[in-house]
């Protein structure tokens, strides 16, 4: 019998610890597929964050180093500058990239650090138990915005991709989602481009991925997928936000 | 013998380069030397000073409690250091800018009209090197020629500046 589907080489043979319906498992898998496709398993160095994906190194079969909360872009900068032949990617959540690590992210992008950021936006702090994130939507209830996020008290959801698009050193920014087979395919393409840009030395690339967190959203996985379409992607519109690479293979 | 000298004046008068030149020359003569600048906000527009210690043996403290020599380029520096200089020490005063009489009788005073002499030579900027020339003549800390040789290091071989500074050093040397 012909084998038509198998585990990517750069994904370890391990059982994910993620909740049912969580986007991390899907994003891990497609990232590993990209690493395989590009043949960079032996050059890749990943920088996972604190948070649910802190154990990413149990799954990615590439060199990995955990960073302190928010410091991924600085750590990746250090690795890439010390060892330019490597292909360095950060894997960061919304609290990490858009709150505590805003400065590191913005300035790495501004320097045009030749690295790839995979930015998981699930509008909530997952591992710590569902607190308000910088990307939490207005009206959304979390454990630290129990009355629903209100701009007057808790501020607005921050759009990091749009902000980073203003920064000259960032060459490619796209927002995708993993809530349907079509969107997952688009996400995989975007991740491929973000890695390719680095391999070709084009500068800072970021893929923001709207990712379901059924547990903290208190929804079923199916409802969570639907919610991304109906609500979340209205605040965070999907699509290409910036591309100065001139590669012309945008989909 | 350990000799400590303080150079003091307004920021911009070139007191740091006086100290640096002396330190460089002393090093070239094979002496132990430390150069300690007052730095940071202290030197933004206000008075600046530095301490140069020269010795034939290892220097313990680079800080001067009571320097043997003080070179003051302006009035505030004269006031600041007049009570710190050690008894029997020499106080070098830029008499072009310092008019107040000194209140101590146990130290020697050398008056150098450095600004006036520098203006005669074409630029008031050379006043510091005129003071340094005069200082070397009286203090005998290093040879004038070593000091001139040291200029090449501080001025990174800039021939025009070296010539101007050399003339000012020599003029100051002959002034006292």
């Amino acid at each position, binding site marked *: 019998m012909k084998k038509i589907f198998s585990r990517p080489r750069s994904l370890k043979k391990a059982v994910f610890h993620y909740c049912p319906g969580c986007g991390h498992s899907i994003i891990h898998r497609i990232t590993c597929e990209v690493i395989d496709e590009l043949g960079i398993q032996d050059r890749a160095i990943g920088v996972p964050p604190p948070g649910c994906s802190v154990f990413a190194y149990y799954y990615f079969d590439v060199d990995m180093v955990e960073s302190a909360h928010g410091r991924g872009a600085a750590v990746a900068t250090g690795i890439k500058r010390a060892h330019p032949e490597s292909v360095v990617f950060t894997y960061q959540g919304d609290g990490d990239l858009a709150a505590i690590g805003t400065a590191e992210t913005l300035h790495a992008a501004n320097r045009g650090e030749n690295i790839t950021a995979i930015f998981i936006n699930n509008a909530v702090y997952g591992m710590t138990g569902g607190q308000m994130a910088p990307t939490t939507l207005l009206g959304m209830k979390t454990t630290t915005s129990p009355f629903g996020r209100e701009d007057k008290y808790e501020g607005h959801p921050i759009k990091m991709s749009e902000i980073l698009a203003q920064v000259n050193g960032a060459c490619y920014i796209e927002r995708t989602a993993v809530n349907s087979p079509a969107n997952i395919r688009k996400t995989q393409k975007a991740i491929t481009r973000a890695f390719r840009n680095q391999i070709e030395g084009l500068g800072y690339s970021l893929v923001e991925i709207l990712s379901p967190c059924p547990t903290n959203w208190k929804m079923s996985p199916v409802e969570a997928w639907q919610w991304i379409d109906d609500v979340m992607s209205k605040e965070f519109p999907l699509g290409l936000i910036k591309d100065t690479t001139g590669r012309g293979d945008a989909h | 013998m350990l000799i400590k000298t303080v150079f003091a004046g307004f920021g911009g008068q070139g007191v740091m380069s006086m100290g640096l030149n002396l330190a460089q020359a002393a090093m070239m003569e094979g002496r132990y030397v*430390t150069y300690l600048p007052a730095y*940071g906000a202290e030197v933004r527009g206000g008075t600046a000073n530095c301490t140069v210690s020269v010795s034939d043996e290892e220097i313990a403290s680079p800080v001067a409690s009571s320097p043997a020599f003080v070179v003051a380029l302006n009035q505030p520096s004269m006031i600041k250091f007049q009570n710190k200089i050690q008894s029997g020490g020499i106080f070098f005063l830029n008499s072009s800018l310092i008019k107040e009489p000194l209140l101590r009788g146990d130290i020697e005073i050398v008056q150098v009209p450095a600004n006036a002499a520098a203006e005669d030579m074409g630029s008031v900027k050379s006043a510091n090197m005129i003071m340094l020339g005069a200082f070397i003549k009286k203090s005998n800390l290093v040879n004038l020629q070593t000091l001139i040789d040291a200029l090449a290091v501080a001025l990174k071989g800039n021939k025009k500046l070296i010539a101007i500074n050399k003339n000012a050093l020599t003029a100051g040397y002959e002034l006292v």
Partner: protein
Amino acid sequence: MTGNAAIAEAAIRAGCRCYFGYPITPQNELTEYMAAHLSRREGCAFIQAESEISAVNMVYGASVAGARAMTSSSSPGISLKQEGISYLAACQLPSVIVNMSRGGPGLGSISASQSDYFQSTRGGGHGDYRTIVLAPASVQELADLTRRAFELADKYLIPVIILGDGMLGQMMEPVEFKHEAPSALPVRAGALRGAKGRHSRFVRTFTSNPAELEEVNWSLFRRYQLIQKQEASCENYLTEDAALVVTAFGIAARIAKGAIKQARALGLRVGMFRPVTLWPFPSEQLKELSKRAKYFLDFEMNMGQMIDDVRLALEGGGDVSFYGRPGGVIPNPTEVLRVITRVYHQKGLNQ
């Protein structure tokens, strides 16, 4: 050469090719020297980072990739680096952090101070860890100990702190560099360079299993014990016949030495014990000295920090007086001489 420039040159000659920093007085000459020598050079990295936090995390990244890496700052900036230092210690990443300390707390003053002794020798960041702390007292020693710092960091896989101060950084003294810069250093074993021809590796600090973390801490602790046994070093100055021993480190030791010379000229039997490594503190050496000398005068440019280690080392076996000036005030040798003379007479040592 200024002390700051001497550190930078010595680091380059020790094979440091990656430097990340953020401006703060009084250590800017170090950053500027690195900018001039490491930026735009093949195989080298210099970044003026967006913060001290980023700078230390860039060191973390460069170190994990196997490079000799360094950052420098002064007191308030070192506070910001503590998070990163804790991670460096946890991941056992060799690295060198320079603190040309200034007066505190808060923004304090830019004048030289020694008020960061506790922060440097007690870890500073969160967690049960140590860093090696070297305390140079001259520009030559700044250069020598910078090289030593890189060697120790690699030998024990540990962050090493060079604790200087603003005065040491700004002052100039002749300095001799005994080594040429190597063209390239071998990549450290265990570095992450991509999993070529081997299994992938990861470097992490987090574990959900307390027993696992306990084992990590045990192994760190065993290494710290080894360092304490092997690396404690000190300078004894005129202590053979001393009735009174001044204990001081860094620039304060220089000032004390000046005072001691004057005290000797007055016929007082005074010497000095200067720890060169603040952690590990040379406790054994001080304890040994206390068999000959009973009276100690601890002198620091703070209100008494190292004195805790002096007392711990003496285990009640000596009489310890203290003199200190906080906030960035620089005591002069005559002032210290007055204190020495007073203590000498109070303790009846002139009889």
